[in-house]
């Protein structure tokens, strides 16, 4: 059954933003301003950490340390990892959540607007601390995992700055998490049940619960580590009887869930983008919603799979192997549902859709290698090798970053009120896709063949594959330029978007672009389910909204 596109019933309010550019540089309590502050800040750190990635790859174009040098290399790789995780992917999740959740559930703002502003303003000092350590030429050098005893003996200043920075960013994410959970539970318009929410809200609910359970444990680990570092205690320091393995347990109790903190929001974005541009309802709404919650739960009981070759007894390895493997089930449900959503639709292959489909296919590769590394005997071979580097870049770049770009192309018209240029968007996509696969696919083979990760110097036998990776990373670096130019140009000069350029059905498209300060002129009416594409309503004009809703529900 097909029908003409559905149009929202409520007409958008006057699209005149009552906002000054200075608002974006101060302490704002408007979730939309805070959202954009998060976006721009985290994108800045993406560029910085991306330059670091490029310099790492240039260094690795030859087997010997000749570009960064051995002393600087570990500093650059530590900062690259830390910034990409804590200053780009995690805060960008918060950026989308801040901007979209109140709009999606018809609220005027977040539940705690001041706390929201505070959460954002913890991020820039966190980033500045890390950059300062680099400027002082004393960057942390123990990797983003910061395992003791190495982190205890390699430069107190840099390590302390790293700890403080991550503590600030962790605090920010806890404050954000509290806010998202409360907002989702308390601020929805009255017609909206949990099952009427867009799936992004479900995924942020799962993410926030995960943040609230796991992040405090990281804070605990880092505080104890800082005591070992500056006060001479021996929680993790073996020379005083401490146990470095305890640090690993505490660290991964947060840092494994952290990968879901990074990818779950993107799962939500994709679940909201695919139906709009495929012009079909999301396939299996409840399955996707519940699988987010299942992933959040399972994500908390798999941390020791990062420690299969560490001090972990055999029986424990087997337990964590089984728990880890099970995550493939809810993740598989999502992937199949996305494919089924696209299948049989009427796909508009614009930049947002290309990145969204790119996300599904790249994340698929990361997921398949993820099941492999869950297997203890196989992981023993590839742990701490380039196979792992390949795996997590497929998940975190192929997954998170592709999804983030899909989200930016999709919601940019809403946030800025102007469309982005599609041609430049497609060039961005093609360059990213080629560069990404060239940069990261060969790393699977490098790792299997015997190249450990985090080395500045490697066996010359691996030179060719490393050079392929380096070429790929340069293309990837260049791919950012069309996006930057496009975003900057479209921000001021792009064609006016209108309230609902994609003909989407979720509530955020029912207000002006950009939305007015309190989002909606009057409380919006839930006139449709979030994904009721293809439902013919033309003859239903006389029916009331509640009758319409009942009909739509009956068809679900």
């Amino acid at each position, binding site marked *: *059954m*097909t*029908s003409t596109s559905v149009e929202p019933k409520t007409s958008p309010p006057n699209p005149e933003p009552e906002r000054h550019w200075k608002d974006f540089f101060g302490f704002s309590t408007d979730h939309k301003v805070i959202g954009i502050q998060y976006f721009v800040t985290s994108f800045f750190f993406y560029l910085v950490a991306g330059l670091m990635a490029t310099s790492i790859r240039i260094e690795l174009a030859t087997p*010997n*340390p*000749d570009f960064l*040098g051995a*002393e*600087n290399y*570990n500093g650059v790789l530590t900062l690259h990892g830390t910034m990409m995780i804590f200053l780009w992917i995690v805060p960008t999740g918060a950026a989308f959540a801040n901007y979209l959740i109140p709009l999606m559930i018809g609220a005027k703002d977040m539940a705690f607007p001041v706390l929201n502003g505070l959460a954002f303003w913890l991020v820039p000092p966190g980033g500045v601390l890390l950059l300062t350590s680099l400027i002082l030429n004393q960057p942390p050098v*123990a990797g983003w995992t910061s395992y003791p*005893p*190495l982190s205890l003996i390699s430069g107190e200043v840099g390590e302390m700055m790293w700890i403080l920075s991550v503590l600030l960013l962790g605090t920010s994410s806890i404050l954000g998490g509290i806010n998202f959970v409360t907002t989702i539970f308390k601020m929805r318009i009255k017609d909206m049940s949990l099952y009427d929410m867009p799936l992004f809200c479900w995924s942020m609910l799962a993410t926030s619960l995960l943040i609230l359970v796991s992040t405090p444990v990281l804070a605990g680990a880092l505080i104890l580590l800082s005591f070992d570092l500056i006060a001479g205690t021996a929680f993790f320091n*073996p*020379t005083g*009887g*401490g*146990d*470095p393995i305890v640090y690993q347990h505490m660290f991964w109790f947060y840092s494994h869930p952290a990968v879901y903190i990074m990818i779950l929001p993107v799962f939500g974005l994709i679940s909201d983008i695919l139906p709009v541009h*495929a012009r*079909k*309802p999301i396939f299996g709404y409840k399955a996707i919603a519940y699988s987010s919650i299942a992933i959040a739960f399972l994500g908390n009981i798999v941390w020791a799979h990062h420690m299969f070759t560490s*001090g972990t*007894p*055999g029986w424990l390895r087997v337990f964590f*192997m089984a728990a880890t493997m*099970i995550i493939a*089930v809810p*993740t598989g*449900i999502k992937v*199949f*549902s996305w*494919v*089924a959503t*696209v299948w*049989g639709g*009427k*796909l508009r292959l614009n930049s947002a859709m290309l990145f969204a489909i790119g996300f599904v*296919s790249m994340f698929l*590769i990361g997921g398949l*290698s993820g*099941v*492999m590394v869950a*297997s*203890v*005997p*196989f992981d*023993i071979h590839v*742990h*701490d090798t380039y196979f792992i580097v390949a795996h997590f870049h497929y998940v975190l770049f192929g997954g998170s970053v592709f999804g983030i770009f899909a989200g930016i192309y999709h919601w940019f018209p809403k946030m800025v009120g102007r469309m982005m240029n599609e041609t430049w968007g497609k060039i961005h996509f093609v360059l990213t896709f080629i560069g990404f696969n060239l940069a990261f696919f060969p790393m*699977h083979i490098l790792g299997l*063949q*015997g190249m*450990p990760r985090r080395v*500045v*110097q490697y*066996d010359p036998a691996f030179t060719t594959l490393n050079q392929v990776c380096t070429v790929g990373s340069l293309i990837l670096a260049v791919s950012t330029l069309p996006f930057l130019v496009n975003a900057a140009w479209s921000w001021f000069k792009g064609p006016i978007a209108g309230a609902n350029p994609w003909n989407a059905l979720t509530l955020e498209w029912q207000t002006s672009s950009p939305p007015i300060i309190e989002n909606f002129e009057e409380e919006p009416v839930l006139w449709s389910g979030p994904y*009721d594409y*293809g*439902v013919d309503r033309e003859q239903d004009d006389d029916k009331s909204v509640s009758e319409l809703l009942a009909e739509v529900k009956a068809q679900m």
Partner: protein
Amino acid sequence: MKLPTSITTLIAGILVTLISLWYGQHHGWMPEAASREAPLVDDLFNMMMTIATALFLLIQGALIIAIFRFRQKPGDNTDGPPLEGDIGLEIVWTAIPVVIVMVLSVYSFEVYNEMGGLDPAASRDPGPQKTAVVPGTAMAATLPGQDKIALGVGASPKQQGNNAMVNVDVLGLQYAWIFTYPDSGVVSGELHVPAGQDVKLKIAAQDVIHAVWIPQFRLKQDAIPGRDTQLRFKPEVTGTYPLICAELCGAYHGAMRTQVIVHTPEEYDEWLQSQIAAKEHGDGLTVAQIMANTDNRLARQTQDWNISPEAIATLQHMHPQMHHHL
């Protein structure tokens, strides 16, 4: 000629199966398999590659077909069919990953058990030990009579309860490996082992965490300060293989590598005898010499690097202090 959908699907399914089965065996991504354990891991990996290839082709194929077949026709602004779900389909694709991960879990468990991962002796963790004497306490690094061997890959089920034929104490320190043969007191900077005999490495770390990785054996185990770990294996193919530190251990982590030399048993005995003789004549290597060799190697390797001679000197000064702990 237009084939009915069911036949195209069938042909596609057969093709996907055949390609996956072939590629799972012929990817050529693993290095040489040189230990008893390696083929076990390789067979498991081949099976995972087969499944992964099949899933990749199916899902990626569906996406690519969708991009071409279900693309919006110009001027067609209608929506697609309002399909919200299909319980049957959803049950099937929940069941597929469930079955796959169950099969993989059981198979992985079997392989891990066969490798010796579930040897109870390798799961007995006595807890951390102090690595050095701390003023004011009387506890030394090693308590006599306590078997600290724990954690890692132990004896295969057939070997459980038997001692390994070759025992080697492995010490990792920035940035070298030192191998001590406790039965003869021979010290070496390379690991020499006989083919076809059970070898047990008792692994310790001096300063920070390191990891023993021998890619051709498919084995890896962290060396953790204050806690011994172990790897037990049987080298099968004679030859020289890299032994690599796989855990970030400092600026020269990438240079922390040495060799495993798998001899025939006869050659191994000759090597051992020559080392014992050299030791008795006073020509045998000492730990300090191995470290000095490493320093020279580092100095040689680092002469082109942008590091100051002072940094190297600092490294060399650190070593006497370390030897004190040995």
